[in-house]
């Protein structure tokens, strides 16, 4: 279970987010929308531990990750998975190595089994040896999802993962990714500027307007 309390973000003199509170139960799928510059991506990056903010507190499964806007726990120790807008696949590693990156503590055979299982789930069986530049945008996006899910994170963050795909593919993938997320029962937050996409994907949708969050 995740709770974010009293999160405030300001860029120089402009207050973008004011006393943002959010609480999600395990398995909840939440979508956060708002105009660009509304601070939705910043909120996500703060939860992940990538940026520090004015003030705010993050607690995940009873563990305090950040308080007063300062990180107490480094991103690598948070057990949070993230899919970036540009996927951020490692260009010098093949699909197998990309997905296995976060589970290197497992034995080689266990890693292989896990990678196969994930590839099956995202419908890319047999893609182990391909490199990111050999994949289409949609395929890269699914590999990025598999990589984020491989270590079984406690929380999955998706930062505009569908925005660089074409419309048809977008619709198809939103549903597919939603199914995968449901199946793994991982608590998830999707950040998107597309309200329609948010409604299809999530159980709960939050909108940031005038630096306030309203949840519907």
């Amino acid at each position, binding site marked *: 279970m995740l709770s974010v309390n009293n999160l405030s973000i300001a860029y120089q003199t402009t207050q973008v987010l004011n006393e943002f509170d959010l609480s999600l139960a395990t398995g909840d799928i939440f979508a956060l929308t708002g105009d660009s510059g509304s601070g939705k991506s910043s909120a996500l990056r703060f939860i992940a531990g990538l940026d520090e903010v004015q003030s705010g507190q993050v607690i995940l499964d009873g563990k305090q990750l950040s308080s007063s806007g300062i990180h107490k726990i480094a991103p*690598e120790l948070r*057990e949070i998975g993230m899919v970036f807008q540009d996927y951020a696949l490692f260009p010098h590693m093949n699909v197998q190595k990309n997905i296995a990156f*976060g589970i290197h503590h497992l034995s080689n055979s266990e890693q292989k089994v896990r990678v196969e299982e994930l590839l099956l789930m995202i419908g890319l069986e047999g893609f182990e040896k391909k490199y990111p530049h050999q994949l289409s945008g949609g395929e890269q996006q699914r590999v990025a999802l598999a990589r984020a899910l491989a270590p079984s994170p406690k929380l999955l963050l998706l930062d505009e993962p569908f925005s660089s795909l074409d419309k048809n593919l977008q619709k198809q993938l939103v549903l597919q990714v939603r199914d995968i997320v449901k199946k793994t029962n991982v608590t998830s937050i999707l950040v998107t500027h597309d309200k329609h996409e948010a409604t299809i994907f999530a159980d709960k949708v939050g909108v940031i307007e005038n630096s306030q969050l309203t949840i519907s």
Partner: protein
Amino acid sequence: MEKNCLKSKIWTSVLALLVAMPIFVVALSWLFPERELWVHFSTVLLPSLISATVVLLIGVGLGVTLLGTILAYLVVMVEFPGRRWLEWALFLPFAIPAYVLAFVYLGVFDYSGYAQVWMREVLGLPGFDIRTGSWAVILTFVLVFYPYVYMMARASFKRQKINIIEAGQLLGASPLRVFFKISLPMARPAAAAGLLVTLMETLADFGVVSLFNFDTFTTAIYSAWGDFRSIEIAAQLASLLVLVAFLLIYFEKKARGQAKYYSNDVANKKPYRALGAAGWLISLFVFGVFMLSFAMPMLQLIIWGWTSVGEEWSVKYVDLIISTSVLTTSAALITVGIATILALPSRCKRSSPWIKGVISMATLGYALPGSIMTVGLLYGVNQVSAISVYFGGQSINHIIFGSIALLLFAYVSRFMAIGYSSIKASAEQIKPMFTQNAHLLGASRLRLILKIYLPMMTPGILAGGLLVAVDVMKELPATYLLRPFGWDTLAVQVYELSAEGLFERAAVPALIMVLLGAVLMLILQLLDKKSSKNF
């Protein structure tokens, strides 16, 4: 299109082969074998010299790779106290010629140097000979040459996308794992390019190894020429060096593979912040390297220079500075001009193995010791004269020997690689799509060059020119042997004084040189900052 390619092929080939001429002359020397001398060299001298050279190359290679990449990673990826000014301060050792650092370290740590006297008399440690073994000479080379790897690795780290590193962090990778598994493999081609330059510089060095009495392959070349008066053997040995350079370039190309990214993503935000003790420890380490490679030697030079400036300074220094500046500027301009023509993007170049071949030959001079370049040139001119006389013409020796043209030729040939690689790197940033677009808009080749290629290559051209200028100013052997009467340079003055052990007095010209070099490096830094803002 075919016709254009032929023209481009001829132009490029003539220029490139002209630059590569000394190498061919050196290779031609195999037509005149000297069997008896070869037996002597291959049984007595070469085995130990080759193993010493290999030890030196491995030591220096490991040292610069480790130091250069670690420093580059720290200044690009980690926020620590003092990072901003250390990031550019680490370039400063470029301004110190290797033989200057060598004579400073010798002066301080030699048996009678004050550091060792202090260690013996105050600490009671046993005395040691800094010239024994290879560690001191390796250390000196590492401190002088790490900036090559640092410079290239830093540029490469800066192009890495922050998202990629954050993805690694969120997948649970520690900073060390991110370094070894993500950042380092992506920066490997760049680090390898820096390593290649370092190894070639080390192979071609004469000043440092002779000051440390460390005999290498280059020593054999000098010995063949100086002791046995055999230009042929010297040239034959030098051609082996060219072969090694060929191999090094081949392996570097192979290591580089297809790893080429068109990415302008600059890591403006540091993924790591080292707070508290860790941050200060990193500062201390980086600062320590800066102290050892630049600040302390400089301080020593200033102390020596201060005590001897009254005795050493005279009007002749005005002449020394003028001739150094004239030679440096003209050599840099010519080199950059030719390198730009060779590096201009074109379809013909991309598709022709012949053009690629002649261009890589033109850049091989970097592995050739300056004096061998000289041998090649003198030998070549002599042969041309002989042919001319044979056909009833005149010898050109009296026009060419002792003229500034020959010296400039040697500089251009020797430092083409430096100018070319910098300009080529900026040419590679020009995406094919720009060219295609310009063609679609009806631009001629000339317009394409003037309006698109040259403006986009300007940062690389300026950087290449500055790097060549710094190297020309520091160049010693070719300058020493080929300078026309009355064209003494600062480098020659440093060498003549330090070879006699007059370290205090040698500090005066050395300081002027380092100062001029530092100004050039500073300009390079400013350009770098400006261009990283533009793109």
